[in-house]
């Protein structure tokens, strides 16, 4: 058998370690028994308990962790495939009703009154005239049956339809070279997505779920639904859309969740 030439580690000492210590302590090593194993296991357990204290909240640590989170925003933006479509599913796999998610429980949802509701537009948009529900509901619809992935780990298949966001932004003369699209919601929630996500073919302003007008808990009369972001990025009960080049923190990013939140 041929042996490859040895390439020792830089840190490896020139002289061999004296293995005499093994011979000298032979008896001790031979004496290793179940009791020793047990003792070792117990002290290992004790070590893990020491991690109970939380250093995440210390200012400098939190600052560093958020810096890494921002770096991850950039990485996610770099690997984003603008025209790569998320998997779609057959209507038979759609969950009805959809699963609720918000920063409060479903009982606390304050329904939006559709008859008086308007969608305000702001920022780098030419035609800022507000939209009424029936005008929006009259726009051409696109349907997507996609997976909703929550940051917590659960997922379900949902069937959403409504105007395509890219089409809508073009229709109102939005600056498509701007960096961000912001959504301000009736429940004081704020959310924003990067422009490439806003222009993705599977990003819509959803008005319907499984062919029927969206229920109150799920964002009636208008919500965002994009196939390339985690659940919390999909703003519900939208009351204003703004196109901007300035970065502002949003509800969850302010609280330490990743802003980009791409999937």
């Amino acid at each position, binding site marked *: *058998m041929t*042996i*490859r*030439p*040895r*390439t020792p*580690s*830089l*840190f*490896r*000492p020139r002289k*061999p*370690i004296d*293995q005499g*210590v*093994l011979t*000298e*302590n032979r*008896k001790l*090593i*031979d*004496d*290793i*028994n*179940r009791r*020793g*194993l047990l003792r*070792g*296991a117990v002290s*290992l357990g004790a070590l*893990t*308990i020491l*991690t*109970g204290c*939380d250093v*995440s*909240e210390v200012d400098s640590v939190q600052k560093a*962790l958020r810096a*890494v*989170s921002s770096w*991850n925003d950039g990485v*996610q933006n770099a*690997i984003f*495939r603008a025209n*790569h479509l*998320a*998997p779609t599913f057959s209507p038979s796999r759609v969950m009805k009703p959809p699963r609720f998610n918000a920063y409060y429980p479903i009982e606390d949802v304050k329904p939006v009154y559709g008859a008086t509701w308007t969608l305000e537009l702001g920022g780098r948009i030419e035609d800022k005239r507000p939209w009424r529900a029936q005008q929006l509901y009259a726009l051409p619809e696109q349907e997507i049956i996609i*997976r909703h*992935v*929550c*940051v*917590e*780990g659960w*997922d379900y298949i949902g069937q959403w339809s409504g105007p395509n966001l890219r089409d809508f932004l073009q229709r109102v003369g939005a600056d498509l070279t701007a960096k961000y699209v912001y959504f301000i919601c009736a429940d004081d929630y704020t959310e924003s997505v990067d422009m490439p996500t806003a222009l993705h073919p599977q990003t819509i302003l959803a008005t319907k779920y499984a062919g029927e007008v969206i229920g109150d808990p799920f964002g009636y009369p208008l919500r965002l639904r994009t196939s*390339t972001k985690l659940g919390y990025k999909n703003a519900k009960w939208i009351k204003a859309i703004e196109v901007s080049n300035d970065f502002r923190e949003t509800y*969850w990013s302010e609280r*330490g*969740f990743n802003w980009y939140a*791409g*999937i």
Partner: protein
Amino acid sequence: MHWINATAIFIMIGSGWKIYNDDILFSFLRFPDAIVIGKWAQYGLQWHFFGMWIFVLNGIAYLCYGIVSGRFWQKLFPISPREVFVTVGEALRFRLRHDDLTHYNAVQKALYLGVMAVGVLIVISGLALWKPVQFSELANLFGSFQNIRLVHFLCMTAIVAFIVVHVTLALLVPQSLLAMLTGGPPIDNARDAAPSAAAPIVPEIKPIPEIPTVPNIETSH
């Protein structure tokens, strides 16, 4: 590299448990707050997506070094199933020896190779979990999103089991800890040439005379 990896694994497992608790896979399993990293979900996530860089970059450097230097080939091969069975038998009877730190026994070889494979799989499943749409081709191989979570979880379980055995045995053979810090003694090539002949895996056990509870240190100098 080992200690960077140990730190990264510690961060990844602790924060992973925190993330798991937000939506549990098994109704009987929820990790106690005392042993998770991050008081709130966002802290757990922040640690996880910070630790992943250390784990992946260090892991890539380690695998490249091991392959390019020939170290893996030298230390982990050849590996025969028969040897693994013999060594497992000896270990269960508490007759395992670790006379020469530069030579791994068959079970060590199998476990180190196995844990490296699990390490690669946990990264792949993690990538599919993080980017099921951008890497949908990869994610589809797992069948469903919850399957990816399950694979990621089982890899973690395997690594935790490995760590328990690994740390216990390292503590039982304290000299190995020194070797881990210094890089270890040079490898004796002569023994590599014919490992089975020159170094029987299990040396014959001689009857042990009276065992003093504390070894006499004085006489050893």
